[in-house]
């Protein structure tokens, strides 16, 4: 396949993804439902993995079996039946053309029309390379060759497991070990695909890298695995987007993302999450987005910056975190989490200060509307060794309507005095006066609300790569439509 062919494949796949509420009719190959050692062996064989990977998976599976599904978050979900899902699903052939989508819900069609973009237009921008993950497999990766000329490896994790075993052995599970938590263990056992990025010493990635995740099959869990390594003085900006069709039952998305940065290196990781949030009227269906994202600032003056715009999913449960090990390393977390209707979100960050002179910043903006529940939960910790650690945390919540809730649950732990941690939080509602003011200038109610909310989130939007700031804004307006009045 040539470089251009890749682009085309992406276009055809992604084109269908526009109608993100709907399932693409594609003939797929699926493993039977259920989770056991055989399935894992079969999965590993299917992906032609070397033995080391199978071992890794089986160890994780053994551990997982001993663990209990956690339920401590401020959201409610029923116990999941892990035997009632497929752990592998992939399109039979990439050339398979999806059939017509005439049964599209007008609501979603409308949403799609208004969204009017995103992937194609942006992916046509020369500056962005894409890895598209469809159910369990990576379908295509663009600009691979061009990136390689610069020494940057950008491919699916499946390819990396075969082609770069040394890097995988060294780093996979080094930030999020399979013992970390229930869903990380599950992911380690059954992850199917994801992206791998390696930026060698001194290289600034010449373009933005991006992965687009798509769940298409019903009753399929998605377990992707992302690993990004930046060697000394390297830099990469990475972006992920996600959508899923509309099913009445809940689907589990349990991803693991690991980042490693060495001296003076930086990773900027942005997420625009728009999984199917469930039915607006009944709350039925939607994705359970239970994700473990963590970065290790290993090197001196290394930096990890997480930016997330969370508008989808029935439940979002994740805490993109930084282990600030290297002296003078920096961790940042900028988040907008918007919940509407019956959505629930329990999200925030963990900043663990270990090295000297480490700094972290957390800016979190939670917007709750409808009957939704939005919780910020974050840990900021300074160990004894973290002399002169600094943290600034700001959590603002906005409530729209009187049936939603907003919670703030910070954990601040300080074990040495040369530390300065500050936490500020406030809660407000969208002022009627503000709405009236904007409306009296000829702006419609929906636009006025979107303007106020987007102003509220401005600090975070500023951190997004330009191409996506616009999309994020539009996503917010769409989610909020008809929330007041």
């Amino acid at each position, binding site marked *: 396949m040539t470089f251009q062919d890749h682009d085309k494949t992406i276009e055809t796949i992604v084109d269908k993804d526009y109608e993100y509420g709907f399932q693409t009719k594609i003939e797929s190959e699926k493993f039977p439902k259920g989770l056991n050692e055989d399935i894992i062996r079969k999965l590993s064989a299917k992906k032609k993995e070397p033995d080391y990977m199978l071992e890794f998976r089986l160890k994780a599976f053994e551990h997982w079996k001993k663990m209990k599904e956690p339920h401590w978050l401020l959201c409610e979900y029923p116990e999941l039946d892990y035997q009632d899902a497929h752990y592998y699903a992939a399109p039979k052939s990439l050339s398979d053309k999806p059939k017509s989508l005439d049964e599209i819900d007008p609501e979603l069609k409308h949403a799609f029309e208004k969204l009017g973009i995103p992937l194609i237009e942006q992916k046509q921008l020369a500056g962005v390379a894409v890895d598209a993950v469809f159910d369990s497999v990576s379908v295509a990766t663009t600009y691979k060759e061009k990136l390689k000329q610069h020494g940057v490896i950008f491919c699916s994790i499946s390819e990396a497991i075969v082609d770069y075993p040394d890097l995988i052995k060294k780093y996979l599970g080094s930030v999020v070990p399979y013992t970390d938590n229930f869903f990380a263990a599950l992911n380690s056992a059954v992850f199917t695909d994801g992206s791998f990025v390696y930026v060698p010493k001194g290289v600034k990635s010449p373009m933005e890298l991006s992965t687009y995740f798509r769940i298409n099959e019903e009753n399929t869990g998605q377990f992707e695995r992302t690993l990004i390594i930046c060697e000394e003085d390297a830099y990469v900006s990475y972006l992920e987007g996600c959508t899923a069709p509309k099913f009445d039952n809940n689907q589990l998305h349990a991803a693991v993302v690991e980042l490693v940065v060495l001296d003076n290196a930086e990773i900027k990781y942005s997420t625009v999450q728009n999984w199917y949030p469930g039915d607006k009227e009944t709350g039925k269906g939607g994705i359970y987005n239970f994700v473990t994202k963590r970065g290790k600032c290993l090197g001196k003056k290394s930096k990890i910056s997480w930016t997330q715009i969370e508008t989808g999913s029935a439940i979002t449960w994740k805490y993109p975190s930084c282990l600030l090990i290297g002296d003078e390393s920096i961790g940042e977390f900028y988040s907008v989490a918007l919940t509407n209707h019956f959505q629930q979100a329990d999200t925030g960050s963990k900043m663990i200060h270990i090295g000297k002179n480490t700094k972290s910043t957390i800016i979190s903006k939670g917007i709750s509307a409808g009957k939704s529940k939005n919780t910020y939960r974050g840990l900021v910790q300074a160990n004894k060794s973290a002399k002169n650690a600094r943290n600034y945390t700001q959590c603002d919540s906005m409530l729209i309507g009187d049936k939603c809730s907003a919670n703030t649950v910070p954990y601040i732990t300080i074990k040495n005095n040369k530390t300065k941690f500050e936490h500020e939080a406030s809660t407000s509602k969208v002022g009627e*006066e*503000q709405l*009236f003011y904007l409306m*009296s*200038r000829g702006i419609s109610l929906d636009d*006025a609300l979107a*303007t106020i909310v987007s*102003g509220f989130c401005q600090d975070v939007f500023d951190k997004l790569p330009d191409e996506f700031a616009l999309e994020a804004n539009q996503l917010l307006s769409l989610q909020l439509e008809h929330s007041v009045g």
Partner: protein
Amino acid sequence: MLEIKNLEAKLIDEDLEIIKGFNLTLEKGKVHAIMGPNGSGKSTLSKIIAGDENYEVTNGSVKLNNVNVLDYDATQRALEGIFLAFQYPVEIPGVNNAEFLRMAYNAKQKHHGKNESDPLEFNELLIEKVNQLNIPEEFLERELNYGFSGGEKKRNEILQLAVLNPSVAILDETDSGLDIDALKQVSEAVNKLKSENNTFLLITHYQRLLDYIEPDYVHIMIDGKIVQTGNKELAKELDMKGYDHLLSTKA
């Protein structure tokens, strides 16, 4: 142009009438001033005209070019050409002033079937307006009213007025809280903006503003309705005698 007839209104959820049979017709190309003591309902009137849903109109009509606008929400009224310069403009953090202006401007353009303005083109228009009104350009880059001083907020209201070019402009106590220089600047701006095609309604407590913006009519509002109408001499008289004599004759 704007015809208010037998208007009666109260705060929603409360029984107390604030506007009690108010009649006024704003004429095209004219400047009207409403003066009155505190609590006479002047500001309430302006908010009702703009479409504030905290008030309930129990009787009467407000017609803009013979169309009753009371059924419209605030957005529709603005699109039809009503503009209120607020006494206390609210602060909206994070919203860029220039972008907000373009949004409002384009909403209006679209409503009238005209082309929407792109950022570059609009920027030119803005620069022209701020220069014309002697407003510092840095206003445009700030967040909407956020962190503005009282005087700056009032001037920002006038900038919006200039950009949106309404047919009915209501200035609610725009003079309050302004020092003499700011008052002059705001007045000059208003004088530049008034034309044969629009009408201005100045709501004020003091005669001071009317030294700079000459009204064609002066109306005195007491207890929710107009009690006297005259020309600018009436304002001067009022300034000397105060409202007390009117209140007592009424009683």
